[in-house]
């Protein structure tokens, strides 16, 4: 109970919980739509929208944090992560600016704002942010895989000969790559968590921008998984992928 309260008392912790609730509602609505009562569906929709609206208050001021994160990522040691993360964070700054403009429109402080245009911009920059984050993740994964291969080669486990012919060798290679990927990710849980989070999150702008349309169920599930991954990084800070 004490851990839960400490977790819920952090901004990120509480926000992740709300986000998980929001996407759970979306998922439940999709799953229950054919059979459930209209009343239940209405309540789920209301909960989802009020949690979503309330969370916007947490996001005010995130532009500042995003700028700080950009400054941090400029100092990353490796070239590829430095490039990817800096660009990603710059896109995130623009996303938060668009988000703030949309919030101003939603609370009724300014009426002359073209909501659809700003929503598209926000979605686009969020998409670029996630793409670049995934690119960084893939780079780190390839490094890990190279390291694992190197260690295995040093350990004397050389790749076996191929007595059975080409086609079987192809399948073995595919399986070996998959196992290598699996081992690399197992060695580095923060990287796995970050990749899963980015991959689940990217479904949202892919749908919004019309690049890859899915449905509310897939998005809800993806959002829920990424929120849970986010909760894990808050509860266990060592699981957060560091900028180094």
């Amino acid at each position, binding site marked *: 109970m004490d851990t839960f309260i400490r977790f819920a008392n952090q901004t990120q912790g509480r926000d992740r*919980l709300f986000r998980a609730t929001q996407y759970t509602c979306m998922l439940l609505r999709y799953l229950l739509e054919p059979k459930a009562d209209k009343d239940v569906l209405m309540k789920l929709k209301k909960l989802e929208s009020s949690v979503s609206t309330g969370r916007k208050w947490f996001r005010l001021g995130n532009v500042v944090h995003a700028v700080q994160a950009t400054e941090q990522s400029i100092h990353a040691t490796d070239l590829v992560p430095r490039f990817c993360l800096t660009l990603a964070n710059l896109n995130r700054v623009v996303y938060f600016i668009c988000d703030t403009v949309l919030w101003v429109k939603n609370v009724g402080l300014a009426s002359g704002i073209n909501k659809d245009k700003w929503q598209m911009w926000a979605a686009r920059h969020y998409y670029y942010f996630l793409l670049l984050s995934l690119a960084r993740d893939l780079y780190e994964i390839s490094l890990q895989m190279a390291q694992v291969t190197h260690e295995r080669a040093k350990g004397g486990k050389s790749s076996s000969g191929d007595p059975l012919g080409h086609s079987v060798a192809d399948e073995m290679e595919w399986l070996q790559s998959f196992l290598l990927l699996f081992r690399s990710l197992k060695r580095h849980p923060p990287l796995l968590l970050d990749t899963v989070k980015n991959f689940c999150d990217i479904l949202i702008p892919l749908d919004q921008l019309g690049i890859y*349309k899915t449905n509310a169920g897939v998005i809800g599930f993806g959002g829920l998984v990424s929120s849970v991954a986010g909760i894990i990084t808050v509860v266990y800070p060592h699981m957060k992928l560091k900028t180094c």
Partner: protein
Amino acid sequence: MGRGRFLRGEVKPGYGGPKGSTLTTGACADSEPQIRNGRDDSFLLPGKMEKLRAAQYACSLLGHALQRRGASPDLQKQIQQLESHLSLGRKLLRLGNSADALESAKRAVHLSDVVLRFCITVSHLNRALYFACDNVLWAGKSGLAPRVDQEKWTQRSFRYYLFSLIMNLSRDAYEIRLLMEQESSACNRRLKGSAGGVPGGLETGGPGGPGSPGRGLPQLALKFRLQVLLLARVLRGHPPLLLDVVRNACDLFIPLDKLGLCRCGPGIVGLCGLVSSILSLLTLIYPWLRLKP
């Protein structure tokens, strides 16, 4: 802590945003990139909550000022809308606070001083009940429980808030009393040490035998004046205590107005709420200003 005020006729149960705002449709979603800075942001939540509270009371104050000066109804409506958004948003963001207040009450039970233990524990318990009522109000306003009697639960929540503030002020009064006694006995020791003793000392406030009724009133006035000076000295020497007293006193106007015990008007309530939020922010920025325990 907030007023939980809603504008009758403006905010209907189930209100989740102004007309034309995004109710999250299937694909829209609230896509938020996470802030991944490795630092512990446990202090950021209270800061954010206090800023939102300050913004809400600033809107209330501004709305009242605009009304007095006869500003355009459009602008007044905008400010009112913003204020109601803030109020509902804060209710959602406060959803975890009840459990937190209970935990604080559990911790306060282990304090050594009996009076402090009682005051602080009861204050936290009342706060927990206030937040619980607030959660019910949120459920009602966001449409999850439309049959909630808003008026009844608002009154209930402000009653608990009032009790909590009374306990806080009692605790402050107790601390002030202790410090005044300490200060007064320290002064006595200094006087006795420097000039072989002054008859009567600080407590009696000066000479005056029991058989002199004509001197009663001036003696009382002098005694009162000395007590006030002592109080001022104690508060000047203990900024955290002074800040806590001012904060609780300002906050007191909010439930007093809402429960109809002391109708001060939205302007005063807004100003008091804003001042107390600013003082809370100060204690977050400068932790030494926070009253311990």
